């Protein structure tokens, strides 16, 4: 148990004033694990929403939120702090504070960037009426958003944020992530069914079909990483990707041959589908199903679905980082970080993980605002006829690599082993490992192009390629 586990024990013991009972433990868990998690992820997800709006605006060449600044929230804070003073004194103090040059500049920029927008949106959302349609199955309808949130938040418990910041160390954390994030399917189905609306029902059905299908490539992709690393413990997987020296980047799983790179692609695409992002947003396809499973939701409950979606996006980003991009480790030189005081190291690690997550997050937004949506059958075909075979191929490739390169396969046989040293690849198999599959891929792509390629000349004229 790392620091946090210890903190729970201490707090529980203190609360109970002796050996802790279940109530004290629950309280301690809430205080130490759940509250910080919520406090961390909620604002980040809310901020994700404003980020998305700004990015969408940039892609569509408009301004996006550009008026709501942080002035209002700041004034509220002032009033709360100075609540004993008369109103004019508060206002005067506030005005004086806002006149300070750095504050003024900061507020100006907060307005320009629309940073206050999510506060405004949040308040608006809280103020909306919570409507339950007459034909709805009330209990199911009301409960679904909570379940979605639970499904979106639980996986974070086992995610290693830093070397000393894992809320729940377990040996099967990869499995835990897969299992808990599956809860969202149930929530979407409940929302779709409980709404008593045919569009919602269709959205719910689509969600179930899509999520269940994409669990398979995601599971296979995680399985590939597990196979390579010989462990199901996410923290151990991160540790596996450690490489000494300056180029720690080379130790990351994504650099361990084309099969893992392929797995990264499979995982990312399937991850997009798992959090219902475009081009896989069939379940809420606005132009087809109005809004799919959340058509009938309003106010806070709708907000929970939105929050769950953003949390899931962040989760996929964090998982991509953890499984393939070295987790919380820095890309250039890891050792110097370890020399720092523990708190600083933890902070930097968490920030690095955050940065990697953000990159994936931004990529997802870019894709959403660029691509059209798949059709139902195309989504299914992509899962079963493209992603699953690719994942299986990668699994096979990884297994063969492990055999050839002399890595042990004990991991496969016994489930979880202690993290074993990475297979030692001398240069020849390394070269073969990269070159042969890459060549094969190039040949395949060229053959496909020769057979099917060649756009119609009219299309070339339209895109300005011809002429």
């Amino acid at each position, binding site marked *: 148990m790392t620091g946090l586990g210890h903190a729970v024990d201490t707090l529980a013991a203190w609360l109970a004033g002796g050996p802790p009972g279940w109530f004290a433990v629950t309280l301690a868990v809430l205080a130490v694990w759940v509250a910080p998690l919520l406090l961390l992820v909620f604002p980040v997800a809310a901020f994700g929403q404003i980020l998305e709006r700004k990015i969408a605006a940039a892609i569509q060449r408009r301004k996006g939120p550009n008026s709501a600044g942080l002035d209002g929230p700041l004034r509220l804070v002032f009033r709360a702090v100075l609540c004993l003073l008369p109103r004019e004194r508060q206002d005067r103090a506030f005005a004086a504070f806002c006149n300070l040059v750095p504050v003024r500049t900061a507020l100006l920029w907060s307005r320009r960037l629309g940073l206050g927008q999510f506060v405004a949106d949040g308040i608006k959302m809280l103020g909306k009426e919570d409507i339950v349609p007459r034909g709805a199955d009330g209990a199911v309808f009301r409960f679904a958003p909570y379940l979605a949130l639970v499904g979106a938040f639980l996986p974070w418990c086992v995610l290693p944020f830093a070397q000393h910041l894992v809320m729940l160390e377990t040996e099967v954390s990869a499995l835990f992530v897969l299992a808990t994030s599956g809860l969202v399917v149930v929530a979407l189905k409940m929302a779709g069914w409980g709404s008593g609306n045919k569009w919602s029902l269709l959205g719910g059905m689509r969600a179930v079909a899509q999520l269940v299908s994409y669990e398979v490539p995601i599971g296979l992709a995680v399985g590939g990483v597990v196979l390579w690393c010989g462990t199901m413990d996410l923290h151990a997987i991160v540790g596996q990707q450690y490489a000494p020296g300056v180029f720690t980047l080379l130790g990351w799983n994504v650099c361990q041959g084309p099969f893992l790179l392929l797995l990264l692609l499979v995982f990312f695409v399937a991850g997009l589908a798992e959090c219902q992002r475009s081009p896989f947003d069939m379940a809420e396809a606005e132009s087809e199903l109005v809004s799919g499973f959340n058509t009938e939701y309003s106010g806070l409950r709708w907000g929970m679905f939105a929050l769950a979606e953003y949390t899931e996006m962040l989760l996929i980003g964090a998982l991509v980082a953890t499984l393939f991009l070295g987790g919380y480790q820095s890309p250039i030189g890891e050792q110097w970080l370890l020399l720092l005081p523990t708190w600083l190291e933890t902070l930097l690690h968490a920030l690095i993980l955050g940065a990697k997550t953000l990159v994936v997050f931004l990529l997802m937004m870019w894709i959403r605002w660029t691509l*059209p949506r798949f*059709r139902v*059958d195309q989504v299914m075909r992509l899962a079963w006829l493209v992603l699953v075979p690719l994942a299986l191929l990668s699994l096979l490739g990884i297994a063969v690599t492990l055999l050839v390169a002399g890595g042990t396969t004990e991991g496969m046989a016994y489930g979880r082993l202690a993290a074993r040293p990475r297979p030692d690849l001398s240069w020849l198999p390394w070269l073969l490992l990269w070159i042969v599959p890459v060549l094969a891929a190039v040949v395949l792509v060229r053959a496909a192009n020769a057979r099917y390629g060649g756009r119609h000349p009219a299309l070339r004229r339209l895109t300005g390629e011809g002429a």
Partner: protein
Amino acid sequence: MTVEASTPAGERMTLNMGPHHPATHGVLRIVVESDGEVVARCTPDHGYLHRSIEKIGECVEWPMFVPYTDRIDYVCAMNANLAYCVAVERLLASDPATTVVVPRRAECIRVLVAELNRISSHLIAVGAMAMDVGAYTPFLHGIAQREAVNDIFEKLCGQRLTYNYVTIGGVAFDLHDGAVAEIAAFLDQFEREMQRFNRLVTTNTIFRDRCAGLAVVDAAQAIAWGLVGPNLRGSGVDFDLRRDESYGIYGELDVRVPKGEAFAGRHGRQGDAYDRYVVRLLEIQESVRLCRAVLQLLPPAADKPADPLGGHQAEVSKILRKVPKGAVHVRTEAPRGEMGYWIVSDGGKVPFRVRCRTGSFTAAGMFQHVMRGIFLADVVAVIGSFDVVVPEIDR
């Protein structure tokens, strides 16, 4: 692709798509009987936007009907104005005493604004189609260009949507100062912009595969079902009223007519949704070319620059108090295809019957036929590919 519905009729789900639905382009209602995701049968329900325009036509004087034509198709009001005015002028021409000669400059301006409006109308069509398929960004890029056209029209006639600009006998105002340079500059940047647009969405694989082979209408079907305009050409029929039954000065211009050729490649078939979509884009290119050609043809302004008609507006008004008796049918090429006016005059100052046949009406008539067996998600793509504008259906 087409899938046969397998569930017996009693177990199907009836979905009410519209009249308030994000993708039905106004207030179109389609009752869809679906077998899960597959459309087993669909029944369009029209009339939510019926404003009895043909009845109004029998109640107002000849020139007073022009603003109503704006409302028949407000996405391309210039073309709608033009269609009615050309028809009335043809009717006036049946008697040499009442013949109205449109000044050449006005003719050129008419073609110019009609083609600009065709561009902006097609921008809505292709943008909305991309949006129905789930790509939001191209629509906004298209709208930005449409706004530029609207800016030009606003300077020209003070309106951004319903222009009431083309009048019987000419146009309402001459081009404003600097209009030619403005339009030329717009066309230049617009061409580059469209290339970006096309790279963004037209050649996108997901978009292409969504539309390839969808709602295929072959040439014979398209003719029999009365499809017109880009929908007809998308099916491979080489026919354009601007070239084949030219009106105004279209006869002097070299109108090239694009037609569907299974642009989507391997999965595509001639007359599928992708063909209709691409034909519109090619027509945009053509319109740009025609606009440039017209700018070359434009004669210098008349002495009284405010009145390109050279002062015969009053004369036309007098003629329109007694329009020769008879019937006339004139069709013009609007962005949504043939806009045909069947006008009957009893010799008075009010039309006896004004009938406007629009492209969207027959396209909507085809929905029941082409929407059988497609996926629910494609219903909106099909609506988008036929580019129906509801006020044109309901009138």
